[in-house]
C-alpha cells in the first residue's frame, strides 16, 4: 500500500462532520499555520514541490509567490472546484467525503496569502456538494476556525461557496473570475495575470481543490518531508480518477512512483480490464490530453517503463507522450472505436467553447461535423488531412487553453490511429457494425538503437 495523505481518513464514519474530523487530528494544520509567518507557509509549499493538480502542473509555491501585495488592496484566494473535464472526478470525491480537509487547506492557504474572503467556485452540477461544503463551513465557523479573529490570531477569514451555471469554460481561471464577478464566463486576455489583477481587479490566486487540500499534509509534515514522497519534480501524492474499461473504476491516491502498467493491472488500483479484453488505448490525464495507444502508454518510445508521474507521462512530448493533466485516467479496451471516441470529445469541446475567439468557435464545430461524417461511414480520405489542418490552426491561436484542449485529442487520435480512420473511410458499410479492434496498437515498439 502506498502512502495516503489525502484520502487516508475518507472512510471513517462521520468524517464529514467537524467533531469526528477534529478527533482524527483535523485542523492541526490551521493551529500550526496561525503561529507561523504567512511568508513561512509559502516557503513550506515551495519546498514541498507541490504542483497544481488542476491540469497544468505549475509549481504552486511559485504561483503563490507571484501574488502582488499592494498596500490597502484586498487579496483573494479562489478555490477552483469547477471540475468538468470528462474523465475527471477526483475533486468531487474529495469534497463529498472530506469537506473539512478542503476547508482546512483553504484556511491555511488564505492565511498564507492574506485572503480574508475566500471563494469556492463549484461546478453547478455538483449541487448536492454545495450543501456538504456549506455545512462544513458553518461547523468550522461555530468552532472558531473561520470568521473573525480565528483562534485569537487576529486573522479574519470567511469562505463563500459559489455555484457555477454549467459551463466547462469557467474552470479556466480568468473565466472563473469573470463568472464569479457575475459576468459572462469568457476567459480574459492575459496579461495581466490574476496574481496582479484578478477578482474585482485585485490580486488573486486560483487553485484547484486537490492542490489546496494538499497544503494540509504539507503543513502537518513540513515541506521537506512532503517532497521526499514521489519522484523528481513529481512530489507528494496525486489523486487519479480512473474510469473506462477497468474492473475497479474509482478515485485512487497514488504515490507517483508506480508504473502505468501496475496502476492498470494491479488489484490495488484498477484491477485490470474486464472480460479478458486487451488494452487498446488510454487517455491518461483527462479528456484534453493526447490519447496514447497501449504500446506507447506502457512504455516510452525509448523502451523504458512509463510511470504515473508528470515527467514520465510527458516523456517524448506530444509525438510519443501525453500529459499527467488533471488525473482523469480513461482506459479503452479493444472493443472501443477511436473515431467514435474522438467524435465524442470533439462534440464536448464544440458544446463548451465560449465562442469568444474565432478559431475555437468555428473550428470545434467543423471538426465535430467532419468526425461525425467519418463515423457515419461517409468520410473521404482528404478529411483526415483536413482535420489535421483545422486542429493545427486552432492550437496556440486562441485566448485560453480550451482551443488547445480541443485540438490535442483530435491531433493525437490522427497521429497514433491514422490507420483506424483510414479503415473507417475505406469500409463505409462495415464500420457501422464492426470496429477496427486492437490491430497493432499493443505491439512492441521498435526502439532505435
Amino acid at each position: 500500500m502506498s502512502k495516503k495523505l489525502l484520502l487516508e481518513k475518507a472512510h471513517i464514519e462521520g468524517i464529514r462532520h467537524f467533531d469526528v474530523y477534529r478527533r482524527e487530528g483535523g485542523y492541526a494544520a490551521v493551529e500550526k499555520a496561525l503561529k507561523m509567518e504567512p511568508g513561512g507557509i509559502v516557503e513550506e509549499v515551495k519546498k514541498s514541490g507541490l504542483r497544481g493538480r488542476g491540469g497544468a502542473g505549475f509549481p504552486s509555491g511559485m504561483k503563490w509567490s507571484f501574488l502582488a501585495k499592494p498596500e490597502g488592496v484586498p487579496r483573494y484566494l479562489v478555490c477552483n472546484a469547477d471540475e468538468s473535464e470528462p474523465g475527471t472526478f477526483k475533486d468531487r470525491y474529495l469534497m463529498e467525503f472530506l469537506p473539512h480537509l478542503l476547508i482546512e487547506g483553504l484556511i491555511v492557504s488564505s492565511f498564507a496569502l492574506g485572503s480574508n474572503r475566500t471563494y469556492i467556485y463549484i461546478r453547478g452540477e455538483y449541487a448536492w456538494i454545495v450543501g456538504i461544503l456549506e455545512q462544513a463551513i458553518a461547523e468550522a465557523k461555530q468552532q472558531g476556525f473561520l470568521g473573525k479573529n480565528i483562534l485569537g490570531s487576529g486573522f479574519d477569514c470567511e469562505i463563500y461557496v459559489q455555484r457555477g451555471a454549467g459551463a466547462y469554460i469557467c474552470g479556466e481561471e480568468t473565466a472563473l473570475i469573470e463568472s464569479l464577478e457575475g459576468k459572462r464566463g469568457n476567459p480574459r486576455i492575459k496579461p495581466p495575470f490574476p496574481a496582479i489583477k484578478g477578482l474585482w481587479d485585485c490580486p488573486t490566486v486560483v487553485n484547484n481543490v486537490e492542490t489546496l487540500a494538499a497544503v494540509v499534509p504539507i503543513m502537518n509534515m513540513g515541506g521537506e518531508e512532503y517532497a521526499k514522497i514521489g519522484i523528481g519534480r513529481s512530489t507528494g501524492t496525486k489523486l487519479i480518477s480512473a474510469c473506462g474499461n477497468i474492473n475497479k473504476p474509482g478515485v485512487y491516491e497514488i504515490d507517483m512512483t508506480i508504473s502505468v502498467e501496475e496502476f492498470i493491472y494491479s488489484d490495488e488500483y484498477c484491477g485490470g480490464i474486464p472480460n479478458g479484453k486487451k488494452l487498446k488505448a488510454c487517455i491518461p490525464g483527462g479528456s484534453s490530453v493526447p490519447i496514447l495507444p497501449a504500446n506507447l502508454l506502457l512504455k516510452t518510445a525509448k523502451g523504458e517503463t512509463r510511470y504515473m508521474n508528470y515527467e514520465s507521462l510527458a516523456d517524448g512530448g506530444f509525438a510519443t507522450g501525453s500529459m499527467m493533466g488533471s488525473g482523469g485516467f480513461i482506459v479503452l479496451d479493444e472493443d472501443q472505436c477511436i473515431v467514435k471516441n474522438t467524435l465524442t470529445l470533439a462534440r464536448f469541446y464544440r458544446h463548451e467553447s465560449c465562442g469568444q475567439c474565432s478559431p475555437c468557435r468555428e473550428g470545434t464545430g467543423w471538426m465535430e461535423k467532419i468526425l461525425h461524417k467519418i463515423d457515419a461511414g461517409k468520410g473521404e480520405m482528404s478529411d483526415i488531412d483536413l482535420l489535421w489542418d483545422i486542429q493545427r490552426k486552432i492550437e496556440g491561436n486562441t485566448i485560453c487553453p480550451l482551443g488547445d484542449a480541443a485540438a490535442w485529442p483530435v491531433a493525437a487520435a490522427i497521429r497514433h490511429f491514422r490507420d483506424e480512420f483510414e479503415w473507417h473511410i475505406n469500409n463505409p458499410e462495415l464500420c457501422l457494425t464492426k470496429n477496427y479492434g486492437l490491430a497493432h496498437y499493443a505491439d512492441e515498439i521498435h526502439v532505435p538503437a
Partner: protein
Amino acid sequence: MTEAVKTLKVTIDNITIDVPAGTTVLQAARMIGGDVVPPAMCYYSKLQGSGGKCRTCLVEVSKGSEADPRPMPKLVASCRTGVMDGMEVKNMTSNRVGDARNGVVEFLLLNHPLDCPVCDQAGECHLQDLGYEHGKQGTRYEFKRRTFEKHDLGPYIQLHMTRCILCYRCVFTADQLTEKRVHGILSRGDHAEIATYIEKSLDNNFIGNVIDVCPVGALTDKTFRFKNRVWFTKPVLAHRNCSCCSGKVTLWQRGEEVLRVTARKDQWGEVEEWICNECRFEKKKTSDWIIEGAAPVNRHSVISQGHYEHTIKPAETFSAVMDGRNPQLLMDIHTVSEVNDPAIDLSQVNGPATSALYAKTDKKH
C-alpha cells in the same frame, strides 16, 4: 516643468519606430502605416476592452524586448500586446503569421453566409476586404451553414445574426455610450448570438452607433436598407447644430437625395465622433445640414480599390474555357428584364446610370 515621455523602440517588419509607453503593437504598426498594419476585425481603438477575440491581428514576436530578448512562443494578438523597448515583431514577413491568418479568415468565413450581393454592408465590409486579401477562392467547408432565429431590435436597427462574427464591438459600444445595455451575447460557442434577452427594441439615443462599429452586415440601418448600393452613393461631409452630439457626419447622397447618414470614419474605418440617433435616422433632407464638401473617399474597400483596373478582358468565350460545353444556367438578362438595354454600354456612361437614361431608348423589341 514637463515630464519626459518615455519612448520605446519597436521594430515591425524591419521598420523601426519610437512610440510612447503603453502603445500596443497594432497601434505602433498603424503609426508606421502601409502593409505592415495587421488587419483587425474586433479591435476598435475607441472602445475600451475591445480586441483580442477575432485573432486576425496575430503577429509573431521574434524578440521580446531589449531586457528579455527571448521570442514569444505563441503568436500574439497585436491589438492587446503592449510594446516593450527593443521588441521585434514580424507581421507580413512571417510565414507562421500568414498561415495562421489564412486559417482565421477561413474560420470567420466558415459560417458567414456570403450573401454580399444582397447585403447592405457590401462595399464597406471589413470581412469582404479581409477575405479578398487573405481568403481562398473555394471553401473546404461542406456542411450546412448555421442560421439563427430572427430578432427584432426595433425600428432603426436591423440584425442579421447569420452574418455576425461575434466581435463584441456593439456590446462594448452599448456599454460605453449608453446608460443601459439591453443587448448582449446569448448562448456560447458557435451558437452564441447577439440579441436582447426578451425581444426588446434598442432605443437609446446613441445606440445607432452600433451600426457604424459593426465590421460586417450584421447590424444595418433600417432607414437605408435596400435603398442603394454603397458604391453608387456619394459621401459628403456635413454638420448641423445638434443638442446632444457633435453633429459632424457624413451624408451618403444620390443626386440631391440623402440616403444615409453615418458618423465620420478615419482611415482604419473607425468612427471619429459618435453621433446621435436623431442625426442618423431623422435628418434625411439636404436642408437639415450644412454641407462642407465632398468627403475624402476611403479606398479601403474591395470595390473601390481598383483591383480590376488593368485587367484584360479575356478573349476566350465560355465554351472555349469549358471544353466546348455551354453553361446551362447563363441566360441573356435582356430576355427577362426590361431594365437594361444592350445598346447602352454602362461603362461608357458618365456617372451612375439612372432611369432617365433608359427612358430615351425604345423598350419594345
